[in-house]
C-alpha cells in the first residue's frame, strides 16, 4: 500500500496552522490478527515538519499513537505559497515524505 500524507496548511493572522493525516498502520505489537498471531509492532518513530526547509516541529511517536495518525500544530510566520515539508521514518526503516503549499 502506498504511503500517503495529507496536509492542510493555512496562513492567517501572522501564523500558519498545519494539519496532517498520515497513512500508517501504527501497529502496537499487542494486537492479534484473525489467526490469533500477534501483529508485530510497526509504527512511525520520527516525523518532521519543515517550512521552507527549516524544521518547525519534530514528533517522536510510540506505538500508542493512533492508526493513520493526525496532528495539528501552528508556527509563527509562513505565507501563502510557502512550502511545507513532511517526512517520517518508522521502526522498520520505511520512510515517506511529501510537500504541500501553504494556502
Amino acid at each position, binding site marked *: 500500500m502506498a504511503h*500517503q500524507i*495529507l496536509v*492542510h496548511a493555512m496562513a492567517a493572522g501572522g501564523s500558519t496552522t498545519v*494539519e*496532517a*493525516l498520515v*497513512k500508517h498502520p501504527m501497529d502496537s505489537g499487542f494486537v492479534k490478527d484473525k489467526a490469533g498471531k500477534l501483529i508485530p509492532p510497526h509504527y512511525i518513530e520520527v516525523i518532521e515538519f519543515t517550512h521552507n526547509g527549516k524544521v518547525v516541529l519534530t514528533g517522536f511517536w510510540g506505538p500508542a499513537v493512533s*492508526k*493513520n495518525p*493526525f496532528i*495539528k500544530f501552528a508556527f509563527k510566520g509562513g505565507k501563502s505559497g510557502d512550502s511545507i515539508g513532511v517526512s517520517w521514518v518508522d521502526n522498520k526503516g520505511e520512510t515517506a515524505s511529501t510537500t504541500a503549499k501553504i494556502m
Partner: protein
Amino acid sequence: MKFAYLALALLVMTPGALASNKPDPASDLKAFQGYFLKRFPKIPLAAYVNGPYDFSKSERAQWKQIMEFPPYQFALDHGRKLFEAKFPNGKSYAACFPHGGIGIAQNYPMFDPKTGRVVTLGIAVNRCRVANGLGKLKLTTGPMADILAYMTDTSRGKTIDVTVPDNPKALAAYQAGKQYFYSRRGQLNFSCASCHVQAAGMHLRGNVLAPALGITASFPLYRSKWGNMGTLVRRFIGCNKKVRSVPDKPDSAAYRDLAYFLTSMSDGLPIAGPGARP
C-alpha cells in the same frame, strides 16, 4: 414505562397497514419520524443524521475533533480514483449511472422494475462491473466502500429520496424490510428496533445507540473499531452477529429489503456520508 410507550407507538404506526393490508410507506414515514420528533423534541429532524452525537456532549466533542481531518479521507481519495478509472473496455462507472454517478446516492436503494428487486448503490456498482466484464467487489468493505464513499460524498447534503413506487413487488420488498426491522432474532432475541428505536439515545456499555432515523445517512463510514471503512451491509452483519443471530449474505434479499425500508424512513433528511463513528 418506555417500553409500554413504545409498544403503543408501534401500534399507532401500523393502522393503515392493518386496515387495508396494503403497505403504506407514506403513513409509516410520518409515524416513524413523528415518533422520534415527539420523544426527543429538542432534536430537529435533520440532526438525526448525526447519529449518537446529539445525545452526548462528550462524544460530540470527540467526534468534532475527529472530523477536523476525517479518517475516511484516504478512502475518499482512493474511491475517487477507482470511480474515475477506465475499465479495460474503455468505459467507466459514470456510464452506468444517471448524471454520471455524481450526486445520486440519495436515491438508493432503488426498486428495479425489470428484476423486481431492490438495488442498493453497492449492488448497482457491481452490476456495472459485471456489465463491463469485471468481477463483483465485496459489498462490505475495501474498494467497494471506497467507491461508495466517493459517490456518497458527491451527494452530501442532498435530500434522501427513496420513494417506494406503487408496484406490488416494490411494496412487498418494503414490507419485508419493515418486517425484518421489527422482528426479534438471535440468541439475545433483539430486533433492530430494540436498540435503534426503543433504546435509541441510551448507552449500551460505552456506546450511545444511534436512532434508526437518519442512521443510514452517514454510510459508508470509517469506524474506529474497524480501523477502516464499512458499508451499511457490513453494519447489518455486525449487528446480527452481536445479537447472536446468523447474518444474511451481503447481497441477500433480506438485507436489500432492510436497507430499502430503513433508508426510506429517512426520506427528507440530508446525506451526511461518508461518516466517522467509534
